[in-house]
């Protein structure tokens, strides 16, 4: 499970933040989508929201090539489906078309689409909050 770096939220709203930690843990512990796929999505989303994420489930070198995932040989077609989905959700989820959704359904199944959608949303906002918390709480 990748770390949740939101210490000020745990300090000032411990009960609410503990519930977030439980969601975070459940994302990583479910058995529908593997942790390395989730990690690629978390890292790419973190890069795009300016969070400077640290790699925990994949080699650190992946961070350097991750922005070039569409054509870099280090990524499998299955990785690319997840990363394309993660980026599309971040940019404009309403523009997700049936073809791209079908790719996700083919590679990860219906359960995988649901887990990936929820997880990517969580990775996005948690990392956005990390950036904001660093300014607000020092």
């Amino acid at each position, binding site marked *: 499970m990748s770390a949740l770096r939101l210490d000020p939220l745990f300090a000032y709203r411990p009960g609410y933040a503990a519930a977030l930690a439980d969601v975070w843990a459940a994302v990583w512990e479910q058995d529908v989508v593997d942790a390395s796929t989730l990690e690629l999505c978390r890292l790419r989303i973190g890069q795009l929201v300016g969070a400077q994420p640290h790699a925990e489930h994949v080699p650190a070198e992946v961070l350097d090539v991750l922005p070039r995932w569409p054509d870099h040989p280090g990524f499998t077609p299955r990785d690319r489906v997840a990363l394309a989905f993660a980026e599309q959700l971040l940019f404009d989820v309403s523009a*997700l078309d049936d073809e791209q959704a079908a790719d996700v359904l083919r590679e990860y199944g219906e359960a995988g689409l649901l887990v990936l*959608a*929820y997880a990517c949303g969580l990775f996005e906002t948690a990392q956005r*909050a990390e950036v904001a918390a660093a300014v*607000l709480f020092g």
Partner: protein
Amino acid sequence: MSADARTSRTLADAAPALDAAKTAFERVAYPGRVDLVTRELVRITSGRLSHCRLCRNLRLRAAIDRGFDEALVEHLEDGELTDRHSAAVRLARLVLTDPASLTADDGATLREHFSDEQLAELLLDLIRYRPGSRLTVASGADLATDERVLM
């Protein structure tokens, strides 16, 4: 609801423990340390930025009971909100569009209206809203048209 659902499954049957944790996260959010009208404005701002019809059209009855008025939503764009509401909405917009642009001056303005405990709560709210909206839209379960939904 949409007739274009991409799956008949729900998160509850796809990943029961995750769904249970999600539900618990939602339940522990209220009551909080920030008044419900301010939180509703932050939630609606998040919904408007999320490309999710359900999220931007949902209204909490409890917030209406506490004084939330639809005119406040119109003021999200014209700058006629109170300084407290404006600060909270600006925080939401910055976090959800470009959190790196949040400045120490923004932080100082926020502290004129909110305690550390309240700011932490607003950030937790902003973390909480979006995953559900992604789930709704990506699965094809969003509203087909903009229509007000009371909850």
